[in-house]
């Protein structure tokens, strides 16, 4: 049953290598189809692994398949191995399935770009990295996948490398993620120091015997990596800027796969986090904080993709909250439904951006829905799923997280309040976007710039994935409806069982659902009043507005805390050390060499006889010395 997993892992790598090796010998369209095909093969492999696993006893579903010893240092040994268990198969299905749709969508979206082959090679590389992250059979391979997704995300965000803003965004994302990688590596060092192994099982048993300081440090390091990758406060500032990449990249990396890696990591290493309960609650707290802060910032953004990006942060906040209080299955379930509807929102936004020749400002997009009815309906379905209105997908996954928060003591109540505020904000900013962009009469800008592809809203490669995801955004949540049927919870139970403290009562489920749906509807209603009927004015409060528009001054804070001191320090060392010592020293050395050379040059007369005379003279002197000494 590990064969499927290996196929799933290696197919995208083969695709990336094939496109890179073939270079310009294959057409751009061929490269695109190789990439799509490789991810489709990966999806097929994931399905094979899944079907295989269905036939097994739930207690017997975890397998590690080693290919060879990857590295060995003394008694420390790491295998190149894949871990196939319910959690990794779940992630494989989500990553390769949604990934396949998005790569297919890219064919239409990137058509006509200068460097399509490079793009598709990167896409395959990314899918491979992500699969390596979720399938890695030990913590070191997980970290390798972790770093590789950081790299391919950097490459894809900076794909349009002629734009300085894209390069800046790519660097920012890379540096932020590298910080997370570093904290994770430090956590691994602590583990190696105590158990001399990075296997999951050893790490989990060891974490039970560690001192509370050590296990807290390990969990904190892991949390740092998770927060950086998943764009949670305080390591979130890279995600909105990363919208500089092509829209399918945003859908793939910044909605469906990479940013959820942090949630996966915490669910995967939940044993360590349960031994460090404070850090686990900290993860939930960061999630709760992010839900509210990202929701508030999303209210004032004017770039369609940035609104969705902040919404992604906020939704991952829910997942962090879920894994923070210990209801891992609900977190993973929300991860899955979020992958559906958020990829859908990004791709529908991409269809609009594509039709408007790259325009991303929602103030210019008013009324596009009249010209693109299908995209409008798709976006509406995604929005309703995001807000969590039944029977759309988000309702089932989000509400069980909110209910679980109620069960979890006093901090659970704090989380609960944050989550409910988040629901209201979600309704508000999502439908602000919807009403502003899709409703009303088309604006002059839209009329002028809108161009349709042969009478349709986009090529079929773009519309088909949007259609499939629309269906999934509607029905994708039906597979689990706590407390009535819970296949995902049962599926994940052997790997990540829900903590008893996060098991809500039935009345909690009911209260949470009603409250969340009502607040979501209230958000939609307010958005309708303000942006559709325009009977309410946007309240004006300069300072608050400025606070939101500056994204709570996080960028400015990091600028003055880290960037400016570092820049000042390097300026100082340049003036104080490099210029007087290194540069001046080099010049001095060169001057001296020239001076000596000028003197020695005189010996070079060009007359062979002088050389011969020097030789003979030297010989004579040597002979005399020889005889005298003898």
């Amino acid at each position, binding site marked *: 049953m590990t064969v499927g997993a290996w196929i799933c892992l290696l197919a995208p790598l083969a695709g990336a290598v094939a496109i890179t090796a073939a270079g310009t010998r294959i057409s751009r369209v061929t490269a695109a189809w190789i990439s799509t095909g490789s991810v489709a093969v990966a999806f097929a492999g994931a399905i094979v692994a899944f079907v295989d696993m269905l036939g097994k006893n739930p207690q017997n579903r975890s397998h590690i398949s080693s290919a060879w010893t990857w590295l060995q240092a003394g008694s420390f040994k790491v295998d190149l191995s894949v871990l196939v268990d319910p959690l990794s198969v779940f992630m494989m299905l989500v990553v390769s399935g949604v990934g396949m749709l998005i790569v297919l969508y890219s064919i239409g979206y990137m058509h006509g770009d200068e460097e399509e082959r490079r793009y598709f090679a990167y896409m395959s590389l990314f899918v491979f990295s992500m699969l390596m992250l979720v399938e890695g059979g030990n913590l070191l391979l997980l970290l390798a996948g972790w770093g590789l997704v950081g790299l391919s995300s950097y490459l894809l965000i900076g794909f349009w490398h002629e734009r300085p803003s894209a390069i800046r965004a790519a660097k920012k994302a890379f540096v932020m993620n590298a910080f997370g990688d570093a904290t994770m590596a430090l956590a691994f060092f602590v583990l190696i120091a105590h158990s001399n192994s990075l296997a999951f099982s050893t790490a989990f048993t060891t974490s039970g015997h560690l001192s509370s300081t050590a296990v807290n440090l390990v969990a904190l390091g892991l949390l740092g990596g998770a927060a950086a990758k998943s764009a949670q406060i305080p390591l979130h500032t890279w995600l909105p800027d990363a919208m500089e990449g092509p829209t399918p990249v945003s859908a793939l990396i910044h909605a469906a796969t990479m940013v959820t890696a942090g949630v996966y990591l915490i669910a995967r290493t939940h044993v360590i986090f349960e031994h460090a309960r404070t850090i686990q609650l900290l993860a939930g707290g960061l999630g709760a904080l992010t839900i509210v802060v990202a929701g508030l910032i999303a209210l004032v953004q004017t770039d369609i993709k940035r609104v969705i990006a902040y919404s992604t942060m906020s939704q991952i906040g829910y997942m962090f909250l879920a894994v923070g209080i210990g209801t891992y299955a609900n977190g993973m379930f929300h991860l899955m439904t979020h992958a559906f509807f958020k990829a859908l929102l990004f791709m529908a936004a991409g269809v609009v951006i594509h039709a408007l020749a790259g325009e991303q400002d929602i103030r210019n997009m008013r009324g596009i829905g009249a010209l693109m009815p299908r995209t409008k309906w798709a976006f509406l379905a995604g929005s309703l799923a995001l807000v969590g209105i039944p029977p759309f997908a988000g309702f089932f996954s989000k509400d069980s997280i909110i209910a679980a928060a109620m069960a979890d003591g006093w901090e659970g109540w704090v989380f609960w309040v944050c989550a409910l505020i988040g629901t209201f904000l979600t309704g508000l900013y999502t439908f602000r976007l919807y009403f502003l962009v899709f409703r009303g009469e088309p604006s002059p800008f839209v009329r002028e710039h809108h161009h349709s592809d042969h009478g349709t809203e986009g090529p079929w490669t773009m519309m088909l994935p949007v259609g499939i995801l629309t269906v999934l955004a509607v029905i994708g949540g039906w597979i689990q409806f706590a407390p009535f049927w819970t296949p995902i919870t049962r599926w994940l139970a052997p790997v990540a069982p829900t903590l008893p403290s996060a098991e809500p009562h039935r009345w909690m489920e009911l209260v949470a659902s009603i409250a969340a749906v009502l607040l979501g509807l209230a958000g939609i209603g307010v958005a309708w009043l303000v942006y559709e009927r325009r009977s309410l004015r946007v309240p004006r409060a300069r300072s608050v507005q400025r606070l939101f528009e500056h994204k709570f001054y996080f960028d400015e804070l990091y600028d003055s805390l880290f960037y400016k001191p570092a820049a000042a320090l390097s300026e100082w060392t340049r003036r104080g050390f490099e210029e007087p010592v290194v540069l001046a020293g080099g010049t001095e050395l060169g001057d001296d060499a020239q001076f000596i050379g000028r003197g020695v040059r005189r010996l070079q*007369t060009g*007359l062979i006889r002088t050389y011969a005379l020097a030789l003979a003279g030297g010989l004579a002197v040597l002979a005399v010395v020889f005889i005298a000494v003898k």
Partner: protein
Amino acid sequence: MLGPGVSWYLGIAAFLFGIGALGVLLRRNPLIVLLSLEIMLNGSNLALIAFSRQHGNGDGQIFALAVMAVAASEVVVGLGLIVSLNRKRLALDVDKLSTLRG
């Protein structure tokens, strides 16, 4: 042992070497310089063979053969240079061929 002692041979060898060295130092025609070089080499060959004979050891004679081979190849190169100098109608005077001066 028949014939004169080794010092005679060494004297002749030194004499040949000195003639050659003076020729190299004093003459300007590259052809003559080359000839003088050959004379120097032959002087040293003679010394090698004389010592080889005195010690009853063949190594020196083999060495002399090697020197001859080197001398032959040197003549090939040197004469080739002189011929091509002549073809370019450059002066056959080593003092005037001083473009390597620093």
